[in-house]
C-alpha cells in the first residue's frame, strides 16, 4: 500500500514537470499553426480553435495572391536549390578533408583540423560582417553563390570534425590490407572508406542541408533581389510593414518549417547518434 502510494506520488511529480514542458514547447508552434488555418478576422480572437478553420491562406500563398508573396514559388525553389548545393558541396569537401586527415595522415592535417575547429567556434554573427564585405570585394553580392559558399564555409568545419571522429574509429588494418593489395588512394577512398562511413555521411549531409535551409542572417545580408532571396528572407520582409498579413505570414512560415522538421525526424536516428555524440566530447 505504502509502495503504491509512493509510485503514484512519483508519477504525479513527473506529470508536474511534463505538463509545463509540453505547454512551453508547443504554445509558439500551436499559435503558428492556429494563425495559418484562421481567417483574417478570427485569427486574433484568442480562441483555442478557430470558429471556421480554413485552408484559404495556403491557397492564397500557393497562388501568390499577395504583394509579399509574388515570388513565393521562386523563393521556395531558391531555398531548396541553395540547401541542396550546400549539402552536396559540404559533403564533398568535408569527406575529402576528413579522409586525408584521418586515413592518409597528410602532413599538416592536425593544423587544418585546428583551423576548422577555430572556424566552427567563431560566433556566426561575428564572421558575417567581414564575410559580407569580402563577398562585395569578390563581386559575389546578390549572387546565390555568395550564400552557398558562405554556408559551405560555416557548415564544413563541424562536418570535418564529426567525420574525422567517426573515421578514426575504423580499424587501421583495413587501410593496410588495401595498400598491400595495391589499392590506390582513390580506390581506398571509394571502395573501403565511403561505404563504411554512410551513417556519418547521412548525418553531416543532413546537418549542412538544414543549416542552409534555416539560415536567416547570411541570406538576408548576401541576397536582396526579390527573385533571388530564400524563403527565410522573404518571411523576414513581412516585418517591414505594420499592417502585414499575419495569417499569410504564418501559413508561409508553416510551409517553410515543415520540410526541415520532416527531414530531421526522418534521419533522427543518424542525427542524434552522429551529432550529439560529436557535438560535445567531455
Amino acid at each position, binding site marked *: 500500500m505504502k509502495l503504491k502510494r509512493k509510485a503514484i506520488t512519483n508519477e504525479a511529480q*513527473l506529470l508536474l*514537470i*511534463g505538463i509545463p*514542458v509540453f505547454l*512551453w*514547447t*508547443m*504554445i*509558439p*508552434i500551436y*499559435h503558428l499553426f492556429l*494563425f495559418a488555418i484562421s481567417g483574417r478576422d478570427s485569427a*486574433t480572437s*484568442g480562441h483555442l480553435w478557430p470558429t471556421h478553420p480554413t485552408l484559404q491562406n495556403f491557397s492564397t500563398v500557393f497562388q501568390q495572391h499577395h504583394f509579399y508573396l509574388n515570388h513565393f514559388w521562386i523563393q521556395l525553389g531558391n531555398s531548396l536549390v541553395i540547401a541542396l548545393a550546400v549539402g552536396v558541396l559540404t559533403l*564533398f569537401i568535408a569527406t*575529402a*578533408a576528413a*579522409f*586525408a586527415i584521418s586515413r*592518409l595522415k597528410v*602532413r599538416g*592535417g592536425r593544423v587544418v583540423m*585546428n*583551423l*576548422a*575547429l*577555430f*572556424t566552427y*567556434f567563431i*560566433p*556566426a*554573427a*561575428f564572421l*558575417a*560582417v*567581414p564575410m559580407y*564585405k569580402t563577398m562585395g570585394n569578390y563581386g559575389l553580392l546578390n549572387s546565390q553563390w555568395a550564400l552557398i559558399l*558562405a554556408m559551405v*564555409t560555416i557548415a564544413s568545419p563541424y562536418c*570535418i570534425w564529426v567525420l574525422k571522429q567517426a573515421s578514426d574509429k575504423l580499424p587501421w588494418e583495413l587501410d593496410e590490407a588495401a595498400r598491400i593489395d595495391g589499392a*590506390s*588512394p582513390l580506390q581506398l*577512398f571509394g571502395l573501403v572508406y565511403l561505404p563504411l562511413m554512410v551513417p556519418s555521411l547521412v548525418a553531416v549531409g543532413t546537418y549542412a542541408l538544414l543549416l542552409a535551409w534555416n539560415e*536567416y542572417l547570411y541570406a538576408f*545580408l548576401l541576397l536582396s533581389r526579390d527573385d533571388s532571396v530564400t524563403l*527565410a528572407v522573404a518571411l*523576414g520582409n513581412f*516585418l517591414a510593414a505594420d499592417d502585414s498579413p499575419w495569417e499569410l505570414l*504564418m501559413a508561409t*512560415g508553416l510551409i*517553410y*518549417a515543415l520540410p*526541415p*522538421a520532416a527531414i*530531421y*525526424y526522418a534521419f533522427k536516428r543518424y542525427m542524434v547518434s552522429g551529432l550529439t*555524440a560529436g557535438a*560535445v*566530447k*567531455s
Partner: protein
Amino acid sequence: MTAVALPVPAARRALSRWEFWGRALIAPYLVIFAVFVLYPVCYGLWLARHPASYVRLIEDPIFFRTAINTVIFIVVAINLKMLVALALSGFFVQARWWIKILSVLFILPWAVPSIPTILSVRFMLNPEWGVINTTIFRLTGLDGPNWLNDPMLALGFSMLMHVWKSLPFWTLILVAGRLAIPLEQYEAASVDGATRWQKFRFITWPSMRGLYLTSTILSMIWTLGDFNSVYLLTGGGPADLTHVLATLGIRYLRLDQVDLSMASIVVALPLVLPLVYFMMKRLSK
C-alpha cells in the same frame, strides 16, 4: 605538389602518391578556408585598425547599453538554460511511454527554423492584437502591457526566446551524458539508502561536471552569435536599447559604418578567443 612531376625512384614515388592524394583531398577545404575565413578575418581586422573607430564606438551610448545587454544575456540566459537542461535531462531519462512521446515533441523548437516560431511569439506579444493581451482584455477588461516596448521586458523575452530555441539541444546532450553513467552505481546507492539528492550529488554530478562545463562554454560562444532571437523579436528596439553585440555589428553594417561594426566585434575578442582556445584544446585532444 610539383614534386610529383620530378623523376624520383619508384619507392619514393609510390610513397608520394599517397602524400599527393592527401594534399589533393584536403586542398578544397584549405581553399575555402583561405578565401572565406582567413582573408575576411584579416580584411576585417584591417578595417578596424584605426583607434578613432574605437573612440567613436565607446562614445556611442548604444554601444555601452549593448555591452551590458550582452553580459546579461550571456550570464542569465545561458545559466538558466543549462540548469534547466540539467534538470530536464533527469526527467527525460525516466522510462515512461508518455515521456518518450514528449521527448519527440520537445525537440521541435530546435528542429524547425527560427523565423516562423520567433515571429509567432512576436505576434503573441503584440499589444493590440496579440493573443496575450486580447486574453487579458477578455478576462479583466484591462489593456495589457506593451510587452516589447519596455527594454527590460523585451530583452527578457529575447532571452526566453533563445532558451526556447536551444534548450532541446542541450538537454539532448546532457541526456546522452546521463545515459553513459552505469546504472549499477545508482542501484548500489539505493541499497545503501541514498536520497535522490545524494545520488545526484555523488554519482550524477561528478561524472557530468566536465560535460556540463564544456556545454556551458560552447553555448556562451554560440550565444554571442545569436542574431535571430533579438533581431527578429525586438529588432534591437525600443530605441536601440535591446541590442546585443551580434545585432549591433549588423546595425552598424546597415548604416554603412563598417569600421564601427568591426570594432564592436574586435572589442569582444579578448572575451571570445580564450573560450575558443579552451574549446579547441578540449576537442582536438
